């Protein structure tokens, strides 16, 4: 567990406020990711985004990046899973 995660646990605050990234899944149809560091893999079934030192993986069907800027990303489509891991 890194320092930021420990700190969020210590002061009893949600991790996404302290963390440098944040993601929101909207009804299995869209994912909003703020604070990403760039695209790693992109195809219609799997999108991987670099976030901090980890990778955010979105899997599903007909995935489209609705909006991509330096900081934010909106992914739409039929989303099966959103996983954050190394």
């Amino acid at each position, binding site marked *: 567990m890194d320092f930021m995660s420990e700190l969020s646990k210590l002061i009893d605050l949600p991790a996404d406020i302290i963390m440098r990234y944040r993601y929101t899944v909207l009804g299995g149809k869209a994912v909003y990711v703020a604070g990403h560091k760039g695209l790693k893999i992109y*195809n*219609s079934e799997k999108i991987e985004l670099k976030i901090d030192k980890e990778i955010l993986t979105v899997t599903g069907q007909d995935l489209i*990046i*609705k909006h991509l*800027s*330096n900081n934010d990303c909106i992914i739409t489509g039929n989303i099966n899973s959103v996983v954050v891991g190394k």
Partner: protein
Amino acid sequence: MFQKVADFVFGKNKIEITGLNLDRLLNALAASGVIMRNICRVTHRIVTFDVTDKMLKKAFGSIDPSQYNVRLLSRRSLKNSFINFCKIRPGLLIGLVLTIIIIAVFNMFVWDVKVYGNEQIGDKTVFEALESLGIKKGKLINDIDRKKLAQELNSRLDQASLVSVEIKGITLIINIKERILRPQEEDEKTADEIISGYDCQIVKIALLNGTALVKVGDIVKKGEVLAAAYEEYYEGSQKVKEPIRAEGEFWGKVWFSHTRYYATDGVKYIRTGAKKTKFFWEIFGFKNSKNYQPVYNFFETESSQTKINFLIPLIIHKTVYYEQKPQLIALTLEQARELYGREVLEVARQKTPKDAVVLNSFIKANEENGLIRIDAVFETELKVGARQKFTS
């Protein structure tokens, strides 16, 4: 809906990029500040996305053309739509440009002159003064020195104390402040008493000095003394009569009338039903009127004009000629009153002074010695006091 409007205003350009390592390219574009929308990976070598007009230039600047093949699939924006529309309909563009040029050119000239604030000075006098200074409809606005024109007008119009000139659009506005003339000082060579200027019935008296010889309701003749030039008062039991110049106003009811005699037979012109309508237009003072004479022996006309001030000041004149035929009729008193009453009344009206307040007017028709007598009367109220000049 909102998105569509935003797309139309800011532009929506669809780009197709072919090449390898497209993820890296997208990251590089995002890092350089390009905001992409609707990114779609068509194949592993082709990606499409939408950008605004502003982002399009940035995107093209960030993509290395030696590594990636870039294709602009569609362009949708207000600017492009306008350009495309103009390409399809060049006539409309030419018309638009011509309209703007016409408006711009015609706005360089004076096409209307308005005069405000004049009561004693007639509009005609002002227009004549303007014309003598070379200002008329169609004069170039830039050639008019407003300050100089105001000064010139001020010197030419004696009764004006202040003249200002302003130009609003194509209208030259002349604002005049007229000189307030001091009430004419009493001529010393006039009599001290006030006499009646008309045959009248006195309705109001406001006397400052002197002795009133009439009272309200009295009927006086022209020249009769209304206020005598003395004052009477008692000193103890002795009545003192002191000469003083009479001062005051007398108002009276005055009747102005006119009488005419007409034959009992009259000619009445009645419309046959046939008519001709003629139009002609006027633009910037130029008319295309032709001297038209209808084929009718007797006719009357009705004219009207319509002003159209959209882009160019166009005036359309319409004249309707109604054919008439004369009919001999034995006039009744009522018919004679209707037929001739107005013209007799008009003559009576002309006799009425300008400062008179018209209380009533009526027309009477009577038969007299085989003729019809028409009397028109104006009942007015006005100041009747006057001074008689010494003849010696």
